[in-house]
């Protein structure tokens, strides 16, 4: 989508950390011509009410995403590895603190 050039600047994706210590979450996108403008626009657009403690802006075309037509097969390999989950194991009754 971001390869589309228009006269209103390129597309940047905005990630915001709402509290120190929390993960950064995708909030939306902004148009801007350079990174300084992107971060200022993102501040004005997405953090008018103290929503932000940290912020990343990333050029949208720098993001690599899984193609939706094969996302199922892409994530398939984890389906047959139930032993990666703690509930897979049969343990003796009476076991404590584990």
């Amino acid at each position, binding site marked *: *989508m971001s390869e*589309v050039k*228009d*006269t*209103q*600047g390129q*597309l940047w994706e905005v990630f915001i950390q709402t509290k120190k210590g929390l993960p950064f979450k995708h909030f*939306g*996108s*902004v*148009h801007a*011509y*350079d990174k300084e*403008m992107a971060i200022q626009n993102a501040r*004005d*657009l997405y953090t*008018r*009410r103290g929503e932000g403690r940290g912020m990343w802006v990333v050029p949208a075309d720098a993001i690599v*995403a899984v*193609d*939706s*037509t094969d996302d199922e097969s892409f994530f398939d390999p984890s389906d047959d590895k139930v032993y990666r989950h703690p509930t897979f194991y049969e343990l003796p009754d009476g076991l404590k603190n584990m």
Partner: protein
Amino acid sequence: MGAEELDVLFQERIDANDKIEPRDNMPEEYRKHLIRQMSQHAHSEVIGMQPEGNWITRAPSLRAKKILLAKVQDEAGHGLYLYSATETLGITRDELIEKLHAGKAKYASIFNYPALTWADMGAIGWLVDGAAITNQVSLQKTSYGPYARAMVKICKEESFHQRQGYEIIASMAAGTEEQKEMAQDALNRFWWPSLMMFGPHDSDSPRSGNAMKWKIKRESNDVLRKRFIDKTVSQVELIGLTVPDKDLKWNEKEQSYDFGAIDWDEFWAVIKGGGPCNIKRLKHHKKAHTDGEWVRKAAAAYAQKHSKK
């Protein structure tokens, strides 16, 4: 997979209340419907800044002025959330603006009415934003992910808009005789256009079928309109004003209000360009866009120069 098979799979996902994301397969008509609806929504937020922006320099106090500035800034923000969400469907911001300027994309007709007095700032926040909230709360459950997420964020912010509007109208209704008259007059002028914001009756709403099937729209125009009336009437009475509808009556059996006939001729006339401010609103938007062209060019040139260093 054939197109028909894909459509069946798509409808199955919709029926299972899956959210559709930008890169997912979707029928072309679904994409078109969303672009039309979401861009109209975005344009409404942006054009909606005009009647209120008009009062920023004439706000009666510094407090009122700061609030109005914040509200108008929010509307710009809502427009931008919605433009971004619309762009995920594969259309550029430039194209969206071009369609608005060419008259191919619409915006909410309510903004073709003038804001004549300070009381109108109250009526707009209270009734126009109130009607918009009723619609947008419902749209938080819309099937297209980016649209639904934009609605969640917008609804959070709209609540301030409605409360600030009601504060204005309530304080005027409690003021001098003249101020109370202004409050009632604003209510008289904005009541019916606010009801029209929900669109034609369900029986006359040609695009509702697909929109409901695809869960773009979750509730019908008439259901939403009734909900808005039911919650607003007591707000009118609380401050001693009168709903300008002689047929408005509580229906005990339905636990809801019956109301008078809406003037649909007026609704269609305003949509088709015959409202008091249609020409002015679009002209102003075009001028602002053209006046800003050198800024866009300068910013692009600056960015290019610095990227070479």
